[in-house]
């Protein structure tokens, strides 16, 4: 296996990682404020389709990205409305989003493009050479050579990770978000508006999930496939947990899980033990997550008030 192949493989791995990362970051932000969002798989699906929609009709992937963000915000607002305003069950709301996403995107695919299964191909997408981030000086560097020619979405993912880390751990807003997730009652006594902060975290997180979905259709692939996001959202959920609800942890987990996704091709390229059940690498994210959750005696790695609805004038 030569350098070019290794670089290609790493690049492919990063490609798989990106949507997982965005999904995981969505989860991190939302749950840091105390709201569980298992609908992020559905939001990714929304983002994937609408991202494609925007890119297709405007011939610019940037518009597609913008549309993906917008639809993410919209669906996120719905989740926030149900869970924050009306204290609806967070899991049920997320499930509703997932189910609606499944049906609605298929419907829209047929309605807009008169096809089923796959949307028409995009000529202009972030995966195309014109949009890639070229860093020719890295080509000769071992290992880093893979980074010399990547889709802009991958870099965007890294940047978002760093930004979220800075947000949560170095800004005033981030501190307040985390307070809401740890002890909303205490936050209220400190004069923090828990509801407003949660609205923000949920919508912003959903925007990220929307980006993640868009990354699938206008970066990793050049179109929308009716099976998107293929459960990537749930891998992202696993990555969030495995990464202990922190942005860099999510990045590490996403990289790990992204690697698992392409192990098949690795096996094919290197010819190692094709008898090794391919399914095993695919289930790795979930098994690891369970192991992490089961192995920790003190379950205190999640934000303390995660998933619990907050009522005003609680005695």
């Amino acid at each position, binding site marked *: 296996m030569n350098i070019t192949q290794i670089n290609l493989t790493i690049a492919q791995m990063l490609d798989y990682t990106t949507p997982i990362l965005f999904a995981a970051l969505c989860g991190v932000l939302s749950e840091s404020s105390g709201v569980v969002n298992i609908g992020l798989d559905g939001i990714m699906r929304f983002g994937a389709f609408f991202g494609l929609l925007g890119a297709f009709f405007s011939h610019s992937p940037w518009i597609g990205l913008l549309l993906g963000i917008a639809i993410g915000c919209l669906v996120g607002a719905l989740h926030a409305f149900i869970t924050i305003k009306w204290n609806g069950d967070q899991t049920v709301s997320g499930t509703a989003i997932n189910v609606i996403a499944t049906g609605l995107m298929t419907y829209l695919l047929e309605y807009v493009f008169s096809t089923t299964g796959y949307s028409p191909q995009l000529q202009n997408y972030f995966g195309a050479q014109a949009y890639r981030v070229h860093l020719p000086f890295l080509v000769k560097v071992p290992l880093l050579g893979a980074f010399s020619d990547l889709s802009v979405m991958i870099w965007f993912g890294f940047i978002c990770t760093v930004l979220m880390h800075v947000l949560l751990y*170095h*800004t*005033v*807003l*981030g*501190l*307040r978000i*985390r*307070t809401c997730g*740890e*002890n909303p*009652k*205490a*936050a*209220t*006594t*400190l*004069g*923090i508006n828990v509801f407003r902060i949660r609205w923000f975290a949920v919508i912003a997180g959903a925007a990220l999930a929307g980006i993640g979905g868009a990354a699938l259709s206008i970066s990793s692939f050049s179109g929308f496939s009716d099976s998107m996001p293929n459960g990537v959202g749930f891998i992202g959920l696993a990555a969030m947990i495995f990464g202990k609800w922190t942005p860099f942890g999510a990045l590490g987990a996403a990289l790990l899980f992204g690697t698992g996704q392409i192990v098949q091709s690795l096996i094919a390229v290197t010819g190692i033990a094709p008898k090794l059940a391919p399914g095993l690498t695919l289930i790795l994210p979930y098994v690891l997550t369970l192991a992490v959750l089961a192995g920790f005696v003190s379950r*205190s790695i999640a934000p*303390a008030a995660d998933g619990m609805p907050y009522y005003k*004038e609680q005695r």
Partner: protein
Amino acid sequence: MKALEVRSISKMFPGNLANDNISFSVEKGEIFAIVGENGAGKSTLMNIIYGIYTPSGGDLLVNEKEVKIRSVEDAIKLRMGMVHQEFMLIPRFTVTQNIVIGDEPHKGIFFDYGRAVREVRELSERVSLVVDATAVAGDLPVGVQQRIEILKVLRRGAEILIFDEPTAVLTPEETVDLFVTMRKLQAEGKTILFISHKLKEVMEIADRIAVLRRGKLQGIVNKKDTNEEELARMMVGRNVVLEIPKVDVEVGAVAFACHDLHVRNKRGYETVKGMSFDVRGGEIVGIAGVQGNGQDELVNAMIGFSHPVSGSMELNGKNMRLVTTAQLRKEGMSYITEDRARRGLVMPYTVRENAVMGQHLGRPFSKGIRMDYDKLAEFAEGKVREYDIRPGDVYDTAGSLSGGNQQKLILARELSLPHNFLIASQPTRGLDVGATEFVYHKLLEEKKAGKAILLISLELSEILGLSDRILVMFEGHIVGETTPDKTTEEALGLLMLGVGIDKKVQS
């Protein structure tokens, strides 16, 4: 100048007048204590002053100007700060983070942690409250955590500080430190409101003391004009004494015994610190004490919800320290709880379904796994008649019954289970006179039937009227043992409030 004035404040909750026309004023620079038993309305009053509740009637004046305090932000703006009984800390965050959240020093959108640490250190030095600014809050001892809470309110410029039962979780040494701090704050011109039911401490630190009882203000006294006994009398007062007939029964074998029992509460602190007592068949042993002195944890250990840290516990002579609730019940333990919603009944279940819980496995209510709901109904109907539970429809949900009828249902259930040791924890809480009489009647019947009964109550008249022997519980110890004919309500009240522990009231 009057820093704070409360004028005719009332607060009505469904079914409960928590504050009834309370008026008083607090001078600037005073340490003003508010004392009263549980349920007297102290916390409610404080929550009103701090904007967590809105009053049903009355006004508040701060610095002699009328104000409307509708939220915590309003209260903070008026320079009030509250140190809650239950700390509002984020265990995962550092001391500094906990103190500055909501008022963070910042450079633009960025949290200036360095400056925050400096500010916290400065504040800490200025008021001589030593804290390690970068320590993780959850790792610190309770006394230090409280200092964090105090620093929190001071940082926001609080001039009026409200302390809600601050010494409840402190050791004696930490309490001393706290009082030193309070004196320092007072010297700086701050006004302090201090809620407590620990009279000794109140007498030590307060300038003036207001006594609340059942939502009403009993009176305000100057510290130098009063003493613990008088305060206790004002707090406890005379209740309507029900005529409880004296029943003499020959005392039988020991049903329950514990020796040097130590139990921890949920936070990990020991709140039962070496109790030893026994209860025999045919007697009612009453444990008197103010809530929060370890009774809850004692009960939890006795019903198998938690295991004692050390010491022994025996039911009918058998070691019961590490057993499950089911095993305890099989051995003959029955339990009447005051927490009807959480521990007593399944509220959405009907009367029919609640009545048999605990004996639903096995005949006659079930054969194998099949449950005979008709038998359940029969049984429940019988109990409804026997205990006069209203309304009399066994298909009503438990949640639709009034408190008194719910308690009767609990009684019906517990007393019909085969048992010889009955734990009655505040069995008449929230009940009217009629229901209370009924409960007393039933308890005496139990006694006549030779059951061993442990009565835990906050109502002294109840303890005095029913018990054959009385144990007073204070801070996890038994501080007094006596019989009803050898003591009075006031004497018990003093013991319960920790007054004169050195002189035990001997039987």
